[in-house]
């Protein structure tokens, strides 16, 4: 898969007990940093990535040679200003950009771990990344933030470590994966498993990866990241380099061609087993159940200041689910701000150039850093 030799890593020697019961030892966490840690060590921001993200938040991703996934938000003078703050982002465990994941080689069999990799949870991901605080000798982060699955990690982080972040900005996320969320993830997983190349997860040869299955999974998921209006406006019924319908199953429409392209470029950078494991972790995420049916209890002990952001056209993690987090925090008198940003770009809004979002986040972060 990815040539991950030149990626920064820490090897975690502290044993980590996963939610599934298994204990892992001496596992790698791959990370990247931007900006510099000040002497007081009070300017660190930990960013959590979403399902298909990685540690390369900004600048050029050295593996894919494309822009980092959050380049609109992170960089010099941007919403998360690399001139002012020290930004850390790690690849989640289960991922395929250098952290412990299913594409790692099992030394016993000399084959990829595949489905021998343990099923992991959002909680496991957060506990694994917590080791970076020790590594950088940071007592308390200034901020934890992330969108989508990154937002779920933000919530879990504050629940697990109530005094380790001054502010938390979960974006376009939920405290509990809905039936619809699980359904879409299952569609993606079944698509991968239906590809004969998947071979129960034991593919390892470059030529026999389950690319078809993974690309269909990506195509289906991609639709859920956009809004109906956004799609209609961008593509409508426009035809792909042709004047008329071809009466065939070629990509007649631009939207078909676009999705096929999204699927095909995705398989070059992402591992199908990682897709299975990470979507599973998202589906298992239910912070409400974890705290006995009362989300407020996840945050009773925290002084962390929350700012929650949702988007009008996001139907995957809609405003109502983001608001449930706000309500749970208000119920215990916690410190919480909330805004729904107007955007027709769907769930993907947090990754794109949505000026009102970026401006609001920038001002909030900077104002929070100055105050006390």
């Amino acid at each position, binding site marked *: 898969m990815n040539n991950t030799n030149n990626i920064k890593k820490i090897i975690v020697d502290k044993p980590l007990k996963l939610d599934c019961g298994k204990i892992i030892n001496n596992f790698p966490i791959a990370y990247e940093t931007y900006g510099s840690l000040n002497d007081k060590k009070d300017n660190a921001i930990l960013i959590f990535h979403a399902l298909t993200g990685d540690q390369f938040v900004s600048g050029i991703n050295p593996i894919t040679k494309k822009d980092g996934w959050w380049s609109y938000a992170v960089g010099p003078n941007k919403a998360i200003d690399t001139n002012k703050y020290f930004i850390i982002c790690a690849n989640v465990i289960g991922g395929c950009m250098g952290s412990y994941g299913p594409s790692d080689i099992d030394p016993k069999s000399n084959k990829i771990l595949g489905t021998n990799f343990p099923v992991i949870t959002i909680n496991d991901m957060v506990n694994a990344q917590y080791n970076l605080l020790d590594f950088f000798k940071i007592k308390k982060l200034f901020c934890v933030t992330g969108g989508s699955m990154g937002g779920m990690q933000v919530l879990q982080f504050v629940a697990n470590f109530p005094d380790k972040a001054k502010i938390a900005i979960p974006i376009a996320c939920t405290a509990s994966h809905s039936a619809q969320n699980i359904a879409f993830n299952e569609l993606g997983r079944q698509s991968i498993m239906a590809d004969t190349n998947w071979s129960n997860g034991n593919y390892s040869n470059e030529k026999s990866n389950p690319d078809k299955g993974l690309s269909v999974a990506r195509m289906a998921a991609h639709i859920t990241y956009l809004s109906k209006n956004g799609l209609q406006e961008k593509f409508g019924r426009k035809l792909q380099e042709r004047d008329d319908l071809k009466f065939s199953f070629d990509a007649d429409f631009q939207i078909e061609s676009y999705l096929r392209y999204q699927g095909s470029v995705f398989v070059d950078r992402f591992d199908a087993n990682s897709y299975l494991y990470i979507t599973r972790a998202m589906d298992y995420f239910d912070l409400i159940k974890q705290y006995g049916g009362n989300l407020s209890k996840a945050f009773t002990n925290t002084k962390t200041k929350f700012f929650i952001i949702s988007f009008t056209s996001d139907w995957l993690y809609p405003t109502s689910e983001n608001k449930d987090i*706000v309500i749970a925090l208000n119920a215990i008198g916690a410190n919480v701000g909330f*805004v729904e940003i107007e955007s027709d770009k769907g769930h993907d809004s947090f990754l794109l150039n949505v000026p009102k979002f970026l401006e609001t986040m920038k001002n909030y972060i900077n104002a929070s850093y100055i105050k006390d």
Partner: protein
Amino acid sequence: MKQEFKIIADLIEKNKRVLDVGCGDGTLIEFLKQNKEVDARGIEILKNNVQKSISKGLIVIEGDAEKELFQFPNKSFDYVILSQTLQAFVNPEIVINELLRIGKKAIVTIPNFGYWKVRLDLLIKGTMPVTKNLPDEWYNTPNIHMCTIKDFFNFCKHRNIKLDKSLAFHDKRTSAINSNNLNLKNLSAELGIFLIEK
């Protein structure tokens, strides 16, 4: 800085928990934080205003006060402020009850529809009054439940809501309202400011 905000600030003790319902762009919250060192929050319905407040580092949530005050626990604030917004609610009585549930005390200010200029407007012109405090026409006004100082005063009496302070504001001056001068103040004041509790 609106004179009204200074009067509100004078009603509030230092280092208390305050919720500003319909906080606009956060001007009052900022003023209270600076002058009274309060732990202040806001709820506001307009996105632009919420974004402005958040940008100042204030703790504000976007929401409709008419529907969303339920999320705050009983007596979770020392003061809940409702500045010139009561008249815009579909059901002001429910909102008042919510303010008194979540706040130990509430501060409510109302543009006085009993003010003599307002009365004269209707009497002479025969059209719905348009004034400095009430600048909208009847067809586009958000103010659907206008009341007078006397109306609000009587409402509190009838509902057993304790009026800790009742102030009439006119021409940059405030004065106390009581049962004896109620009719006079109802005629002469542009704004009524009430500190209430239940």
